[in-house]
């Protein structure tokens, strides 16, 4: 060491520096991701951005309209309608869905007899074919002989028209969507729950904490990274809800279940205004992005990462 020449010393130090450099490690970890994003993701995303400034589609373009498509969106009654519907959907499904699946996950985390069986059951809706599920719910919602209204009738309540009613169609879809998503989010919560060391519960029990206190002071804070992630993903997914209204109501009756992405789909593949559809997609993107950033800003208030 003491007699090492200047150049040799430098070479070693460069390697050493590289080895110690957090930046180099960081890029090593994200290099495949950056490559994937550049090649597979952002090419198409930018193509869609380009198309949002024209009138036409990917087969041929009729003319450049600049921000015209965006202007049209703000004047488009249907776009506002779909945005209101989608927001209503997100507000109505995300918190309820998360609370229920968390409750379910906690229940499913117990070492009870037959828990494997129950877990499989709660996961069934997530894996059962969407066609079968949509059809069956449509049938359950049938105002005259559907299961739901039959039960309500027994309780002396006259059930609504559900999917045929402009007022109840969206809530009906929301109920179904919460029901179907329970198993999925339950699984994510379950994984998070497994990461909470038993010692914390034992410590809390010694301190005499009841079930509720344990939940409030151990489970909830330690699960907050998972909860945070599910919240972000649910909001992203919720704003892109499409399948149920597409399959069950085609946006009706009277636009009551028209969601933003359904409108985008209709513009892209039914009336073939791909340019306009892309502009709508970018407006939606911007809304979701802002909401996500707000959530990231707010996470320091309630998300606890390290144990």
């Amino acid at each position: 060491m003491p007699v090492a020449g200047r150049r040799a010393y430098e070479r070693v130090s460069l390697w050493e520096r590289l080895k110690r450099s957090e930046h180099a490690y960081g890029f090593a970890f994200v290099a495949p991701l950056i490559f994937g994003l550049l090649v597979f993701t952002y090419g198409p995303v930018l193509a869609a951005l380009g198309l949002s400034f024209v009138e036409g589609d990917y087969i041929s373009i009729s003319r450049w309209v600049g921000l015209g498509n965006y202007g049209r969106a703000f004047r488009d009654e249907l776009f506002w309608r779909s945005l209101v519907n989608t927001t209503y959907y997100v507000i109505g499904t995300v918190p309820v869905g998360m609370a229920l699946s968390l409750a379910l996950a906690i229940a499913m985390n117990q070492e009870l007899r037959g828990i494997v069986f129950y877990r499989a059951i709660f996961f069934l809706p997530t894996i059962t074919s969407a066609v079968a599920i949509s059809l069956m719910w449509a049938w359950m919602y049938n105002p005259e002989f559907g299961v739901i209204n039959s039960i309500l009738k027994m309780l002396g309540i006259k059930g609504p028209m559900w999917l045929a009613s402009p007022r109840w169609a969206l809530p009906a879809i929301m109920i179904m969507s919460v029901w179907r998503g329970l198993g999925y989010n339950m699984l994510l919560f379950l994984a998070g729950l497994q990461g909470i060391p038993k010692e914390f519960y034992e410590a809390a029990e010694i301190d005499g904490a009841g079930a509720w206190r344990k939940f409030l002071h151990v489970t909830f804070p330690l699960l907050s990274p998972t909860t945070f992630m599910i919240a972000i993903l649910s909001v992203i997914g919720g704003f892109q809800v499409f399948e149920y209204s597409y399959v069950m109501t085609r946006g009706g009756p009277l636009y009551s279940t028209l969601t933003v992405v359904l409108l985008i789909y209709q513009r892209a593949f039914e009336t073939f205004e791909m340019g306009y559809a892309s502009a709508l997609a970018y407006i939606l993107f911007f809304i979701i992005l802002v909401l996500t950033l707000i959530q990231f800003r707010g996470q320091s208030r309630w998300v606890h990462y390290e144990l």
Partner: protein
Amino acid sequence: MKGICSRRSFLKVLGAGAVGAIASACAATPTPQVIEKEVTVVVQGTPQVVKETVVVAAGPSGKPLLRFFMYNFDPWLQALPKIFSDFEQEVGTAEVKLESAPWDQFWPRFESQAAAGIAPDLQIGDPFKVARYCDKGVYLNIDPYIERDGVDLAQWYPVTIEACRFEKETGLMGRGPVFGLPATYVGTVTYYNKDLFDEAGVGYPNEDWTRLEFQDAAVKLTKDANGKRGDEAGFDPENVAVYGCSTIGGYATAVHLWNNGGGLVSDDQKECWIDKPESIEIFQWLADLIHKYHCNPAPAWFQGQPDVFLTQKIAMKLDGTWNLDYYVEKLTFNWDIAVVPKGTKGLPRITYAGTNTLHIFSGTKYPDQSWDLLKFMAGPGGMKYFMKTGTPCLIAAAESEEYLTGKPEHRRVAIEIGSYARTYYPHLGNDRWKEIYNQEIQALYLGEKSAEEVCRTICEKINPILKEIARA
């Protein structure tokens, strides 16, 4: 093109995916004159791209390999391979490969392929999308071939040939050059459950029926949970066990409108006709069938029951003949078909017909061979099998003993449609106003507003769109 691409094109994709996509989309659409050349490549994009995509597809025998694109539908998926194998033996200018996709993803996939210039050589069209792909130059204009071979277009039902014509200047179908040939067609008829008619003591639908007789029959056929008929005292409209008819929905509504001298929009697609008195009369009548006569179920009732005729919950319905073969196979009771009821104004009967058309992709490398196949499929060779998947458009095939024997008894009704039917508002931009109509009209069937009010609102919203989409 398969395998690893050159580094340059890869970098091009990398750096300028967006620019590339737009540039290729900007390029001129293919012209229909390509058929003069022996082998022509018409792909959107720069010439280099064209060179890159020249791949000689060939079957095992070394002949050109044509790709035919069909949506997943079991009877067709079974018939097509037989047609192709006959074609390979009898004509033999090419081999054919079948490609298919589910209906819901069929158009997104075709749209992608057309944008990339790699669509299959031939495909089945959809009545509502033919105009778009003719306009975009995706489908090949086959007029030169028809002239060359002296093909007589009168051998197919006129309404089915109209479904292949498109005029770019006006954006209207039914006129202009021919962009394909018809395979099978479906039309609106009256399906009726003979057992339920007999039980109610109602005579079967006949040639002279008007919509009012239709309504009378429907009321008598309607039965509540206690067995009381729709015209009896004490009938309970809240607990209906069997409804008399189902006659509300896209085509059925249009058929009633046309027979009354009304319509949704004018034939040149420039004016909304929904608020014409003749139209409002029909819309009010349809709403009355639900709310006043209780012989037609409200839309909510259909939820979760894809086919109420099958389960004997309705006695008759106006519906397309697309169900015919399925019903022959599946129905367990006595049933038949009849013509649609006439209007009350003494106008000649009119009904709807939609055609499954076959088209050649303008970018095909084998236009001549594709034409051979198209001609074969729409001719007697293909119709031999198509008559098992629907009503053949070739008059000779439809009139044949082979098609007309079998259930139901009045099978002839299905082929006679060809002589008096019309198509459903064939225009390039009609999806835009139909969407509004389909949503807004629901207020009427829900009983929230009167026909007059709903119809006026719709026309207020549709007229500006009609102005926007009108071309000439």
